[in-house]
């Protein structure tokens, strides 16, 4: 864990440590603890405390305003029989299952297209990556303006290139509303997926590609059986990051679809937000949060486990 192991031998440490102790007389361990303590304090107060507190609140009837009282496992009992929560969890999973492979394929395509150093390639990469730098909220409002049926340019463009005969009312039908969020999310994150996958592609020695070409290996076969296995670290990172992000999606749905039409696009985080801050049931919202967190950790754990197994091979 210490850099001393990587960069210097044990012999270098002893005289150094003695010299330091002579100057101020404070043990190294205490110095380390003191240096870490401000950051640690933040983590304890704003991460560990709420994490423990979440469980405590979830065992109570805890309104946004007014007195709270202990109710035991009542919130969890309700959670197991709540169709709204079930629907939100399912919809979130559905969104993640759609968005993850789409972003992977789009990112891989872009990375393949732009992986080699050529004149102007940096400009193309920057253009594709630019949406990553802006926030999901502003990206959603940007697309809200572009896809308004009467004044939105995107809708006019679709009509002008004869993809549709009239302006599309994106938010009227569940399928179109979901499609719009997928478009916005892909536009916003394709550059991210491109860069992280490009890392993997560029780490493959060029000799391998040349050797395969001399052997007459086809491009697709080269990609599938040589390149993809060699870049599995960056694939793992991309898939984990994108899928976790998809599971936590809130902004796009809150801003673009407002959960509609007919409550068909409410994600898990959106459901927690509604329960806690619109209905004012902090206790039940915490129970939903704890349940969702357990599911998330199971999914992340499974992903890490699968990746580590492949690592060992």
């Amino acid at each position, binding site marked *: 864990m210490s850099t*001393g192991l990587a960069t210097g031998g044990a012999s270098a440490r002893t005289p150094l440590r003695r010299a330091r102790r002579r100057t101020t007389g404070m043990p*190294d361990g205490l110095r380390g603890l003191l240096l870490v303590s401000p950051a640690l304090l933040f983590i304890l107060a*704003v991460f560990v405390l709420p994490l423990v507190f979440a469980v405590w609140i979830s065992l109570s009837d805890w309104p946004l305003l007014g007195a709270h009282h202990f109710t035991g496992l009542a919130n969890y009992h309700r959670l197991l029989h709540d169709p709204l929560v079930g629907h939100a969890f399912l919809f979130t999973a559905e969104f993640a299952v759609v968005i993850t492979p789409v972003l992977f394929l789009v990112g891989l395509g872009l990375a393949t*297209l732009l992986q080699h150093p050529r004149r102007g390639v940096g400009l193309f990469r920057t*253009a594709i990556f630019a949406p990553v730098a802006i926030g999901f909220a502003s990206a959603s409002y940007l697309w809200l303006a572009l896809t308004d049926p009467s004044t939105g340019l995107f809708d006019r463009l679709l009509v002008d290139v004869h993809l549709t005969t009239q302006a599309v009312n994106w938010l009227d039908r569940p399928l179109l509303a979901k499609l719009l969020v997928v478009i916005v999310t892909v536009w916003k994150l394709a550059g991210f997926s491109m860069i992280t996958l490009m890392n993997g592609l560029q780490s493959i020695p060029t000799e391998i590609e040349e050797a395969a070409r001399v052997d007459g290996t086809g491009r697709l076969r080269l990609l599938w059986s040589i390149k993809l296995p060699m870049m599995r670290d960056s694939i793992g990172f991309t898939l984990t990051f994108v899928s976790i992000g998809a599971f936590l999606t809130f*902004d796009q749905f809150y801003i673009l679809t407002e959960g509609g039409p007919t409550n068909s696009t409410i994600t898990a985080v959106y459901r927690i937000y509604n329960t806690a*801050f619109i209905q004012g049931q*902090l206790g039940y919202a915490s129970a939903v949060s704890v349940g969702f967190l357990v599911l998330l950790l199971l999914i992340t754990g499974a992903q890490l486990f699968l990746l580590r197994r492949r690592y060992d091979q």
Partner: protein
Amino acid sequence: MTSDTAAGPARTAPGSRTVSRRSRPGAYARTASRGCWYVVSAMVAVLFLSPLVSVLIGSFKSPREASQSPPAYGTIHPSLRNYSSLRIEGTSIVQFIANSAEVAVATVVLTVVLAVLAAYGLSRYPFPGSGAVFVLMLSAIMVPFQVLLTPLYVVLNHVGLTNSLVGLTVVITTFQLPFATFVVRNSFAGVPRELYEAAAVDGAGLWSTLRLVLPLARPGVITAGLFAFFAAWNEFFTALILLGDESKFTLPVILTTLVNGARGSIDWGLLQSGVIVTILPCLIIFVALQKHYVRGLTAGSGR
């Protein structure tokens, strides 16, 4: 794979020559495929940039052009009206830019200072349990803040930090700390051991040693600061929950007010200028420092 064609001077490394010279008739096809590559790449780049560009143009449309149906692609009467009248119930947009800037700058400073101290402590003076501290920080990456906001709200409310830019800064900083510490710690790992030894021989104390090695960890510090800036400037969910008074809203939340406060008749010109004001600082900083941003992603993907 740069092979010399009619398009450019010979820029190839000697190694790849043999491949490109293999077939003489192929040269023509290569020029064509190179041209194809430029056309396809340029089209993709335009595809990704066009939403940004059309909203930029849209923000300069006059009110009549902005509400025209079907909309015009450009503007014949460009006007600054959408920017000059960008205020919410009498409060100028400058107030909200200041709020966002305050949160972003405070988050960057706090994150960088705390992360540098923690990374220096963890890598230089390991103590019993420093491994556990590192694992605790990594677990904070695994548990997303979105799931913790309900109890966090109760805790912050108890100490009077809801409806406060300080509270917002504290939350964003905490969830930026693990990544920032990780990146800065990696930078410290690259500092040569001899430098520490020389400092010790000179009798330099903890702080002067830190000041000596910090420039060498600069790349990691910039990356950490950059990610903290984007996280703070763009944070929507936490700001939406924590901030109550409109005068304290940050830019992303103000966009919500522009849409929801309009009660059915959204002023699309105003919304587009609001979007531009919100995203422009990000784009400028990203273009200026993109190398550092991309390095952060590379560090994350473990290469």
